């Protein structure tokens, strides 16, 4: 119909390449390393740095699905409670006589179920907001955990189980290895597959996605279930590291996770942000925490630093979204028979 040719080759642009939030996060990590190692000689100590990494990485598994959830313009604040419930059920079933291997499977199933239930409620009742739904299940899951253990602790796991908490493969902590593998997997899933493209589509314009044949409900269910599974993985590592569990474990984990995702440049307006940003943000917050702890700066100070960082990242990422939005103002949008 038209012979006009349209360019379909995108030239590499240094400007576009450099103007990415991820560089900011990399710079932050470098600054944290330089400042901390100049203040404290212990910072770059291999053993202590890998111990610290193990400590902050457990909750980081939830960051992956949370990135997808927030790109879909949803949120899940029940993940901390899911960790607690999965952990408590695992410990209880083990102490009731189930082999540890099966107890771990049960733990993963409980996580998947919790996540699926969140997704189901959101898909079934579209008018409900994710904040309210997952706030309710946050209270619910934690409540069930308390009902099972009644403020007791439960432990006595076989010795091999602690490998999840403290194990090394060669010089690399097992948890770090798994984190890197999952990070690559989730990054590929989000950025290179049809599924990932549709996740972005849902967050950018749910109606248009639905009209374009994207199975919005199915994708939401899958992602929320993934969040539950990742929370269960967190539960396994956390429980293994501590050696026992209580119903109040993983308290406020959801906020840490959401903070990491937001700092990673994932816009709360949906549709924007990259997996890499959130992964970098995990290390920014983790090493900041570790470094400030080493030089005896009180925990309150850390909260202030993270708060300021978050405000900075949220303003910057949302400004970016705003700048790209343009709505045409010329429309005579009346509907009638002329």
């Amino acid at each position: 119909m038209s012979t006009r040719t349209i360019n379909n080759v995108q030239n590499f642009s240094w400007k576009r390449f450099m103007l990415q939030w991820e560089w900011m996060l990399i710079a932050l990590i470098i600054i944290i390393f330089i400042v901390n190692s100049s203040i404290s000689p212990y910072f770059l100590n291999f053993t202590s740095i890998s111990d610290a990494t193990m400590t902050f990485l457990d909750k980081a598994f939830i960051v992956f699905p949370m990135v997808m959830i927030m790109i879909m313009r949803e949120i899940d604040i029940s993940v901390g409670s899911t960790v607690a419930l999965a952990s408590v059920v695992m410990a209880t079933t083990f102490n009731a006589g189930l082999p540890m291997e099966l107890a771990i499977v049960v733990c993963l199933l409980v996580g998947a179920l919790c996540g699926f239930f969140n997704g189901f409620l959101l898909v079934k009742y579209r008018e409900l907001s994710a904040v309210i739904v997952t706030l309710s299940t946050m209270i619910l899951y934690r409540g069930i955990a308390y009902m099972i253990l009644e403020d007791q602790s439960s432990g006595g796991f076989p010795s091999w189980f602690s490998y999840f908490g403290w194990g090394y493969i060669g010089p690399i902590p097992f948890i770090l290895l798994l984190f890197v593998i999952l990070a690559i997997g989730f990054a590929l899933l989000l950025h290179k597959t049809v599924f990932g493209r549709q996740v972005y589509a849902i967050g950018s314009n749910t109606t248009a996605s639905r009209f374009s044949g994207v199975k919005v409900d199915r994708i939401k269910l899958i992602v929320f279930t993934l969040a539950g599974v990742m929370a269960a993985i967190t539960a396994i590592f956390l429980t293994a590291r501590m050696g026992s569990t209580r119903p109040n474990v993983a308290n406020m984990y959801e906020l840490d996770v959401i903070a990491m995702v937001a700092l990673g440049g994932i816009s709360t307006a949906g549709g924007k942000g990259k997996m890499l940003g959130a992964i970098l943000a995990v290390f920014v917050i983790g090493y900041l925490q570790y470094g400030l702890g080493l030089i005896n700066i009180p925990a309150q100070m850390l909260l202030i630093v993270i708060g300021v960082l978050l405000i900075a990242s949220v303003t910057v990422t949302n400004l970016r979204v705003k700048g790209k939005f343009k709505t045409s103002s010329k429309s005579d949008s009346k509907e009638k028979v002329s």
Partner: protein
Amino acid sequence: MSDYVLELKAITKEFPGVKALDNVHFNLKAGEIHALMGENGAGKSTFIKVITGVHLPNKGDVYLNGEKVVFHNPKEATKVGIAAIYQHVTNYPDLSVTENIFMGHEKIKKSTRKIQWKEMHADAKALLESLGSDLNPKTEMGSLSVAKQQIVEIAKALSANAKIIIMDEPTAALTHRESEELYKITERLRDEGVAIIFISHRFEDMYRLADRVTVLRDSQYIGTWDVDGISNDKLVVAMVGREIKQLFPEKQVLIDEELLRVEKLGQAGMFKDISFTLHKGEILGITGLVGAGRSELCQALFGIEPYDEGAVYFEGEKVTIKTPADAVNLGIGYLPEDRQTQSLILQWSISQNITLSSLDKISHKGWLNNQEERKMSKTLAEQVGVKTNSIFNLASSLSGGNQQKVAVAKLLTKDLKVLIFDEPTKGVDIGARSSIYQIMIDLASEGYGIIMISSEMPEVIGLSDRIAVMCEGRITRFLDKDQATQEAILEAAMSKQTSKSQVV
């Protein structure tokens, strides 16, 4: 003192990429009803927004009672007595009639800063009575019919001492009888010296009410006439212009075998008893007034809101359509009415928009193939003639017409057989409009069956092989191409308008 209460001289308003008003003149006398007419996208809305202070014109002056004024915001316009009543009534449905009337200028006792409810209710009642309405001012706004809400809006304008009232398509959602009531109120206001700008697509509104008529077309001022001094034909030419004949390409398509048959389809409260067939190469126009159930019908066919009775046959076989994915798998595609919220992701590139509905075609086992994506979107963007230099440009950077072409390209990525176009040229300028028509004709000749929902009479008449006219959820008449006239369509569209029951 000037003869005119309001005068606009050589108004030009530009938006990035579009000239929405180009050298437009307008004047208004006290105690006159002045009709403003023009097609969709002619610039009427922008023009109204200049008068009400929403938009500041780039060029040109506004004179109020002979004095030059500049409105920087709607409040300044309200202050000097300009009020607008819109088709989509903009009010507070959960508040009372009184609260709606006095919103923004509540009566407050100076000494105590308290709202004077008693006085406001009394004033509201008096105002409504002066308009011949016996509404209780304490009623909740949302519980009223559109017609009654409009009366409240008029009362609101009067309570703010409006001397100039703009009515934007007030009759579009009203029944015959309700329109008649509105005419009477409008005439009463005119006799009291209020100047009224009346925008409508209905010729009958204009003949019944207006003293003079001003026509806009393609953002340009065409002329102002006394209503008594201009014939219907002349007015149509003024509104539509000479392009009308060339606008619709000649369609010479053999209508082939049956593609889609719909039998006694119904959806509670929306439409009922809908039966029609669609053939290969055919364009079936569906038209009717607002709320006639056209969009609902087509969204049901596309599986967005499933139908609850009747049957759909696709290529002779009975099928069930429950989700858009079902429809697409069968071969039915839908071009939504509102491309900005229902079709496109504006902050995405043209390329990503085109491929969204058929990602399986540019992927292998779930992995996206960028090469394939670029190839496919380039081919399709060129096929529909999107005016852009790169497929990586954002959809938001395109004009309405070109956005619509991208939306059409999205449909062509799949192996579809039936295409449903819902208001395909809404808010699209005349140039892009004719190329969208050309695309539709070309698609029909490739063997697609096309259902076109449209409110634009010329478009329905110019493109359709057959026209189904809907009224209150039912098809009231089928018209063949050679029977199709504006009058016949209007008659069928309003055939039940006098009855009181209305499909919501």
